[in-house]
């Protein structure tokens, strides 16, 4: 009997729902609260597979695309959801939502909800949503006599970084992701490219990565991180920057809004309470924050869709937010999914420094028109085509190499343009 004997010591008799998730603090909280769910639903056992972002994405994509069926719930983003819905790989959740009383679909932040829909129907439900913004050390800015503008521009940020940089081995000006991966380096860089007026493709699917706008943007990013950025830049992603910023080793950090929860946690951060927030810096566009959501979906192959939905609903409804707020702390609630969260006075009390900015960022993000000129694709910090995972990662490797100083920005973009062109060609016919 090989069925169900996949692991040694599997408990038989109850329905086990396997959840593939990206390991981050909010998900860890969900895991720690999940025994409550199991207590409320004795017929369901949960099993979590938590992986870091890159691994999770590779694993989940492979599993869902090949119908591997290891998972009943997968954590995916607004990048995958519409495509996978189109491919018929994941389950339409509208009927489930409709059946679930009190599950307030309308409460989801509209841009987030739309980004998780295909033909108007939601195929995944957001666990949290994020945009990007700039975090900075208020105390340091004060010391240096710098005033953060309400809507900073990138050149201003570069200047601040220079002024706050204490040199090698000491506190640096800014932390920017440099670790390869389309979900790592590529995300903030894409917003910079967009706001500099660059784009991946023109409407004829001609790759545009060597255009002057993209060049300028990338050169700016690379120069900034190389001159005033954190040490080990080409290896640092979200986690490394979180550590650097939390340990007071950089003065600014441009990254996901979800970072706020971490850096404001006094247990893990030495700078909690001394942080200011500003919208994503811009150049040529009015706003430049990204739109991203980690959401939960059910692969079509899952034989336990009802049980899976029970847990997904539990994890994404309003009560869950309450539960986290009460049991773990209001700084830890998953942000950016429900409007009601932002109306919650308890949440407002702990998060008024950044919460409005997050909501604003999410609402202003414009995946349909991310940059100045028209594009044939959707997405702010990604291009929603299946090849982008690979393309984005490969391009990010090139840029990362440029950040490491191994190659020049031009060389990196040259190579990237080749990749992009090859991919673009398959869309031209």
């Amino acid at each position, binding site marked *: 009997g090989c069925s169900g004997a*996949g692991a040694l010591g599997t408990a038989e008799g109850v329905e086990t729902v*396997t959840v593939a998730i990206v390991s981050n603090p909010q998900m860890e909280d969900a895991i720690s609260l999940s025994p409550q769910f199991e207590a409320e639903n004795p017929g369901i056992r949960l*099993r979590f597979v938590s*992986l870091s972002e890159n691994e999770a994405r590779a694993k989940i994509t492979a599993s869902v695309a090949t*119908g591997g069926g290891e998972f009943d719930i997968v954590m995916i983003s607004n990048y995958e959801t519409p495509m996978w819905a189109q491919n018929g790989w994941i389950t339409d959740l509208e009927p489930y939502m409709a059946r679930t009383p009190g599950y307030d679909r309308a409460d989801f932040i509209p841009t987030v909800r739309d980004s998780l829909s295909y033909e108007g129907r939601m195929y995944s439900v957001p666990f949290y949503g994020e945009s990007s913004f700039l975090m900075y050390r208020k105390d340091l800015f004060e010391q240096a006599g710098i005033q953060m503008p309400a809507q900073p521009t990138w050149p201003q940020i570069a200047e601040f970084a220079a002024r706050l940089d204490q040199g090698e081995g000491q506190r640096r000006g800014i932390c920017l992701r440099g670790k390869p991966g389309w979900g790592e380096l590529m995300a903030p860089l894409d917003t910079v490219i967009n706001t500099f007026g660059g784009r991946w493709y023109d409407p004829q699917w001609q790759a545009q990565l060597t255009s002057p706008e993209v060049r300028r943007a990338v050169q700016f990013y690379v120069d900034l991180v190389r001159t005033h950025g954190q040490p080990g830049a080409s290896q640092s992603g979200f986690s490394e920057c979180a550590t650097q910023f939390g340990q007071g080793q950089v003065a600014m950090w441009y990254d996901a809004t979800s970072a706020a929860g971490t850096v404001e946690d006094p247990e893990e951060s030495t700078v909690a309470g001394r942080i200011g927030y500003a919208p994503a810096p811009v150049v040529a566009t009015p706003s430049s924050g990204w739109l991203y959501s980690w959401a939960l979906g059910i692969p079509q192959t899952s034989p336990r869709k009802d049980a899976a939905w029970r847990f997904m609903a539990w994890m994404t409804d309003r009560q869950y937010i309450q539960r986290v707020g009460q049991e773990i702390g209001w700084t830890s609630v998953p942000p950016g999914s429900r409007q009601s969260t932002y109306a919650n006075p308890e949440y407002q009390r702990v998060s008024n420094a950044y919460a409005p900015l997050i909501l604003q960022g999410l609402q202003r993000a414009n995946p349909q028109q991310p940059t100045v000129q028209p594009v044939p694709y959707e997405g702010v910090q990604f291009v929603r085509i299946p090849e982008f995972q690979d393309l984005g990662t490969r391009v990010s490797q090139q840029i990362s190499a440029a950040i490491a100083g191994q190659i020049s920005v031009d060389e990196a973009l040259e190579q990237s343009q080749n990749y992009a062109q090859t991919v673009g060609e398959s869309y031209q016919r």
Partner: protein
Amino acid sequence: MAVTTSTPPDERTPDTAEGAPEPRRRRGNAVDVWLGVIAWVVGIAFFFPVFWMVLTSFKTEADAYTPTPKIIFEPTLEQYEGVFSSGIGPYLANSVGATVISTLLVLLLAIPAAFALSLRPVQKTSDVLFFFISTKMLPVVAAIVPIYVVVNEIGALDNIWTLIVLYTGMNLPIAVWMMRSFFLEVPGELLEQASIDGAPLWRTLREIVLPIISPGIFATALICVIFAWNEFFFAVNLTAANAGTVPVFLVGFITSEGLYWAQLSAAATLAALPVVIAGWVAQNKLVQGLSFGAVK
């Protein structure tokens, strides 16, 4: 501090009457001492990262992140508690299962095969051996795609038995090679004597040959255990929730929201511990096994 075999002067036999020469010393004593010191320094240098890992695992995260590394701190077990509470248990169980079962399978298949190959009349012995070892030369990565597809087709993804089969296949060639060289060390007369004494082949194998080569079997098993326990490529690509092994757990442990060195160290220490202890205990056998029995 080097121990030499020379006798201290006062222990000399007293009856060296006439010549009673000057105290005897060993040549190059100073050099010996220095080389010993160098060996110690190098040994400690090689071990230091491991030591530091273990040390870090007893720190709090705050103690772990200090620009000046901390040697003195208040040790805590909280990281280990953290690792265990984050569910290393099933992964450990999977690792143990995959390692033990695949090693047993390897032995079960390799012992008869090596025995057959060490006996005279199997024709094309060296072809077969060549085949076995050449499978080791082929990069696994070239086969991962079809393996993934096939395993997926038969619905065996994330199944511990998949890993067991693959680990068996991975270790079998080396095991056959090693064991054969051990078998070759068994004097032919013993087999002949056994056949004159009327023992059937399997009985000869069981009663005469296996006891002789048991150190070799042990060494082989140990090496299979090391490689199976540490295997990562198959594990990361073919398992998910059910059948993940300890290295996979370790990778999952690097959360995307922050590297916790201390906790990571605790997890890494736990992951490495079984094999390290086994290796320490059996290091002599290991030498024998690694040199393919080329050393008696």
